[in-house]
């Protein structure tokens, strides 16, 4: 009886050890490539909201951590040309129809939007997902706008008396996106000096 349990324990232990080693080795082999891919992904999403001619540095290597109004830490990536900050980009969050939406926005030094892209969302396919640049050009509408253009009170979807189109069958998703962008612009406005100072 006792010998038997010992044998079971040894068998299970041997398998755990064996596969543990195999996984550790694979992880070691793959980790450099995995890190490189993650970096590429972030550079990609940054590249879409910070036009390449705006900077000569690596924004990923130049992060600034600030607290937003609710005390969450925001990592802000700065685009610089000859040392001067020409644009900033960071992740914003909006609440959509089916949970949180993650977006990346880029703003130039004058407070104009360089671009907004949706990174992740759970909105209804075919209705709310037109916020993705792959599925429609709605999100491109924001490029070049700022807090004064359109005026602050028109930063809403048309249904709420604002300037931005909602989609047929989906109002909550665009409303959430507009609100998130508006929030990002407000944040920029409130933290302008801190965001644009040289270091």
């Amino acid at each position, binding site marked *: 009886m006792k010998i038997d349990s010992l044998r*079971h324990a040894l068998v*299970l232990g041997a*398998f755990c050890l064996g*596969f543990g080693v195999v*996984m550790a080795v694979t992880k070691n082999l793959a980790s450099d490539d995995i890190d490189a891919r993650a970096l590429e992904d972030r550079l990609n999403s940054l590249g879409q909201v910070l036009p390449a001619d705006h900077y000569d540095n690596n924004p990923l290597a130049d992060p600034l951590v600030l607290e937003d109004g609710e005390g969450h830490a925001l990592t802000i990536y700065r685009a610089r040309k000859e040392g001067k900050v020409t644009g900033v980009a960071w992740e914003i969050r909006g609440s959509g129809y089916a949970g949180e939406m993650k977006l990346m926005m880029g703003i130039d030094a004058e407070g104009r939007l360089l671009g907004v892209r949706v990174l992740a969302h759970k909105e209804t396919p075919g*209705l709310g997902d037109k916020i993705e640049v792959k599925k429609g050009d709605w999100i491109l509408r924001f490029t070049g706008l700022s807090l004064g253009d359109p005026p602050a009170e028109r930063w809403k979807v048309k249904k709420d008396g604002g300037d931005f189109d909602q989609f047929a069958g989906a109002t909550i998703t665009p409303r959430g996106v507009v609100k998130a962008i508006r929030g990002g612009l407000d944040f920029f406005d409130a933290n302008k000096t801190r965001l644009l100072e040289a270091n």
Partner: protein
Amino acid sequence: MATDYRRIVRDGMWDSNGVLAMLLGMCPAMAMTTSATNGLGMGLATAVVMAASSFLVALFRKHITQEVRIPVYILIVAAMVTLVDLAMNAWLHELYKVLGLFIPLIVSNCLPLARLEAFAAKEPVLPSLVDGMFMGLGFTVSLTMIGAVREITGAGTLFADASLLLGPAFHFLETRVLPADTGMLVMILPPGGFLVTGLLIVVKRMLDVRAGKGIQMAGAHSV
């Protein structure tokens, strides 16, 4: 007795098909089949894990004692899934961005575990490898079919983004069947998964009845 490989292949692809006959692995069969491409990708990843774990269990079957076999099977499946996950993340990153979220779900898919217990634990290495492979391929075909029906009826496309999964050479697969915005949204949403899976099971059973087989109990051949 010589191993009947044709029997094993038939079981995996049709008679004891994981989804359409045994009704195993329903979670990925519903969650991942919003398009034919997604179904294909999820199916192939599962097939790799199944073939590898069936092979390993058959290889070690004389050393795995009865009392600890279930934890060992789970360990092997989980290890294979982890390896596939790491490898895809590093070397098939575009595909990983599409499927990555669902790869860990293979661990909780009961189809691999069922084949280990019912087949690989008793049979030699080669038949087990073939069984794992064809059970996985049968699963792949079912998922691709469910995905194709849902995608055509729901989004009006077939194999959209297939080039992301299979490489640029497969761009020709991407077809638009219906004009844009004419699909029935419900087919892409979760209810569509149940409807289409149910309908495909009906079709399979009708074909079986017509072929004079009668309706077999799920997995009758495997036990």
